[in-house]
């Protein structure tokens, strides 16, 4: 499968199954589009005809038969090297891979089902997850870490995200659990990687110092421009939270040397010009930025609609072009969803086997209940067990285990399947009532992001 597109002046050809990415001239771009359907003579004839009016120097030489044949020879070389028109040989491999015994390697700990903000788009029902306000006790958290160690097999690196609601509302338990984890990792030859997701309201020097010592990554929730942030992320009394959190986040990011953190925002139908929010965060001095589309019910006023897509695509294009311009200057920044690793990226097993929810990754509620991920918490149909008794509903984990890109019709023929791994199961469930489907608006945006990310690589390769 080959995916071709033009972006920011670059002709890009992605050979989906090998992951090879080629930047080509116009004639070669057209030739690749015809290569599998037409014979050599037909391609030469059609392209000679198409380019006959071009000035001789437009392509560094006249587009004559020799020129076209040279391009065709290069295409054939790539095909023989299995970097173009490569066949998909992974389906059986992934099936076997997914059927292997899995271990639990990451937990999302819901330290507090309570929050000190009242964000309009909160999927967690303002922290309560459709249940009651509740804080996780140390005993439950300890049992969760024990459960993780006991179910992690030979896996060494274990990940634990302190999530909420707002985890700083129960920070003593966070500190106690980190201490317990550090003690246990020595005993069991494991390595805990702790992360913290916070809205910043209660952030103080003590929390920052602790996080800088113990947290591999912190996710700081902020949406961008003051008016956007304050509208969607008000405090309980309705007042904005921007002025409270921005100086703290700036200090926090600097104290981490602008590394190992993300300011993370959500954009909605109300700020379709979200690239301005990304650039606003960059202007505030943040270097690690993640801003992504809201997931909402179709009936929510802030939900992204299909009619918004054209504008959102233009926003991603503009943002990508701006990032190319800023590269190598002091205005440079990382945008999480445009990051793509072309050399040391994940193996094909990782790319095709899904996000790990319900199998390798589980969410734990304050009471110790286990769910496939944070997005399913509160939906009793997905209650899998608890940290004391373990996973009882193995039928749920089996269903998630079977979920990979080949189990999803929409993903099979999608060029982005090696980059999104089949997308978010919760999004699929929310929109289609089935984890084996895909959230179409999310897919359209994901595909655009992949295209932009590759274009940035093409531009940087040219500049270097």
């Amino acid at each position: 499968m080959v995916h071709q597109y033009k972006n920011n002046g670059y002709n890009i050809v992605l050979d989906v199954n090998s992951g090879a990415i080629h930047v080509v001239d116009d004639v070669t771009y057209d030739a690749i589009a015809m290569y599998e359907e037409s014979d050599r003579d037909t391609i030469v004839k059609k392209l000679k005809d198409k380019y006959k009016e071009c000035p001789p120097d437009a392509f560094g030489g006249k587009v004559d038969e020799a020129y076209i044949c040279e391009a065709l020879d290069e295409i054939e070389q790539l095909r023989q090297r299995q970097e173009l028109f490569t066949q998909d040989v992974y389906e059986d491999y992934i099936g076997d891979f997914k059927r292997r015994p899995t271990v639990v390697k990451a937990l999302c700990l819901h330290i507090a089902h309570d929050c000190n903000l009242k964000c309009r788009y909160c999927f967690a029902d303002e922290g309560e997850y459709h249940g009651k306000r509740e804080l996780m006790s140390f005993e439950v958290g300890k049992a969760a870490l024990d459960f993780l160690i006991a179910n992690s097999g030979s896996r060494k690196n274990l990940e634990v995200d302190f999530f909420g609601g707002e985890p700083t509302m129960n920070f003593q338990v966070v500190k106690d659990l980190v201490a317990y984890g550090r003690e246990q990792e020595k005993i069991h030859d494991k390595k805990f990687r702790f992360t913290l997701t916070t809205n910043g309201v209660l952030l103080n020097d003590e929390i920052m110092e602790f996080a800088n010592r113990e947290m591999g990554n912190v996710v700081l929730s902020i949406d961008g421009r003051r008016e956007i942030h304050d509208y969607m992320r008000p405090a309980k009394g309705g007042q904005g939270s921007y002025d409270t959190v921005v100086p703290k986040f700036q200090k926090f990011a600097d104290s981490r040397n602008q590394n190992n953190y993300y300011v993370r925002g959500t954009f909605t139908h109300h700020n379709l010009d979200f690239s301005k929010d990304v650039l606003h965060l960059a202007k505030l001095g943040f270097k690690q930025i993640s801003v992504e589309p809201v997931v909402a019910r179709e009936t929510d006023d802030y939900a992204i609609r299909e009619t918004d897509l054209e504008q959102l695509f233009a926003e991603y294009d503009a943002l990508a072009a701006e990032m190319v311009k800023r590269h190598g200057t002091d205005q440079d920044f990382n945008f999480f969803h445009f990051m793509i690793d072309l050399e040391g990226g994940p193996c094909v097993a990782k790319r095709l086997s899904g996000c790990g929810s319900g199998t390798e990754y589980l969410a734990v509620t304050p009471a110790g209940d286990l769910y496939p991920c944070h997005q399913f918490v509160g939906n009793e149909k997905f209650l899998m067990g608890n940290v004391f008794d373990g996973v009882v509903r193995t039928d749920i984990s089996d269903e998630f285990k079977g979920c990979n890109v080949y189990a999803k019709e929409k993903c099979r023929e999608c060029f982005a399947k090696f980059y999104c791994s089949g997308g978010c199961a919760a999004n699929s469930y929310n929109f289609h009532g089935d984890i084996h489907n895909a959230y179409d608006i999310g897919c359209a945006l994901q595909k655009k992001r992949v295209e932009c990310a590759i274009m940035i690589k093409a531009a940087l390769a040219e500049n270097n």
Partner: protein
Amino acid sequence: MKHIKTLNTKKLQNTVKKGGCGECQTSCQSACKTSCTVGNQTCENAR
């Protein structure tokens, strides 16, 4: 090549034999929490 510039040298096919160790980060644990992205994640063995 004159007409084609290839940006990457690593082929996905070559990761089939040695891949799948499972030591890498779970996809949702970094900075997304809603939109699964794996293309930007790091292989633990390449660190």
